[in-house]
């Protein structure tokens, strides 16, 4: 795990430094801006979906989906981050307890 931790750290730092160091014209184009803005959106959406609906390499619908549903409602109500995350966990755990 350490190589992954260190590679991520080094890469993340170099990406930060890059933005501060390149000349403005090199990267500051509408298309580059749009890609850099939308890539995190696609990734976070994909990570959410996979985290909730995948087990191994099969698609499943289990207690995690109920947790996600709670998270959606909580976010619509502008709940703080901790409420969203802890509430989702509690809903999933509660459902598992009931299902036995």
């Amino acid at each position, binding site marked *: *795990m350490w190589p*992954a*931790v260190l590679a*991520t*750290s080094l*890469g*993340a*730092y170099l*990406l*930060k*430094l*890059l*933005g*501060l*160091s*390149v000349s*403005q014209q090199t*990267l500051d184009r*509408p*298309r580059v*801006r749009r*890609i*850099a*803005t*939308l*890539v*995190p*959106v*696609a*990734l*976070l*959406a*994909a*990570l*959410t*979906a*996979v*985290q909730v*609906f*995948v087990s*191994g*390499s099969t*698609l499943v619908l289990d*207690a*995690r989906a109920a*947790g*996600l549903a709670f*998270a959606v409602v909580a*976010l619509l109500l502008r709940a*703080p*981050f*901790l409420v*969203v*995350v802890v509430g*989702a*966990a509690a809903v*999933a*755990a*509660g459902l*598992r307890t009931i299902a036995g």
Partner: protein
Amino acid sequence: MNDDTQAWRQERRQINVDALSIGLAVGTYGLSFGALAVTSGFSLGQTMALSSLTFTGASQFALVGVIGAGGSAVAGVLAALFLGIRNSLYGLSLAPLLQVHGPRRLVAAHLVIDESTAMTISQPTPRAARWGFWATGVAVFVCWNTASLLGAAGAEAIGDPETFGLDAAVGAAFLALLWPRLRQRDARITAALGAAVALALTPFLPPGVPVLLAAAVAVVVAWPVPRRSDSDRGSAGTT
């Protein structure tokens, strides 16, 4: 130099208060990160190395999430770095405001994150912008690492993640990170397509890879630049 006028002292104090409240808010993410990293199999030391050295929340969650779900280390690192690309974009907006060179730039780069960027670009003057950057960067760094440590230490005491629904918490954390980025219509389209592509490819590819291919969706959606472009949409999210 009449730098230390009463008004400027007051302005600085206000910025410090704002920076501290942002730091405390970010601390709640840090608690979750620390707990989730440990329950995904990262040691306390590795969790703290991520929070202090990587120091960009969404990337840390991505690495931990992909590896925790059985993905390879390479897929985890790539997902984390793809997410880190937005920090390069932030740097572009910050560079003319901060005017940092030499060793100061090397330190400043480490603090280029969502919160410090949002704080910096929303200040009325370059002087306040610079103060806002350093105050927010330092406040978030301290709070993020303290909270990660507390979360990681707490989770070490818990044991099996499924008992407390912590596996469901990871998905909720990603959604909460995504939420503030969905204001624009093309962001919502990208999110829907990205999720759909990742799920559709899951049965056929090793864990972690479908997530990376979802990033390609963003490139496809972003490629045609609108003619009357709202080109300075590169605003910072909230984490």
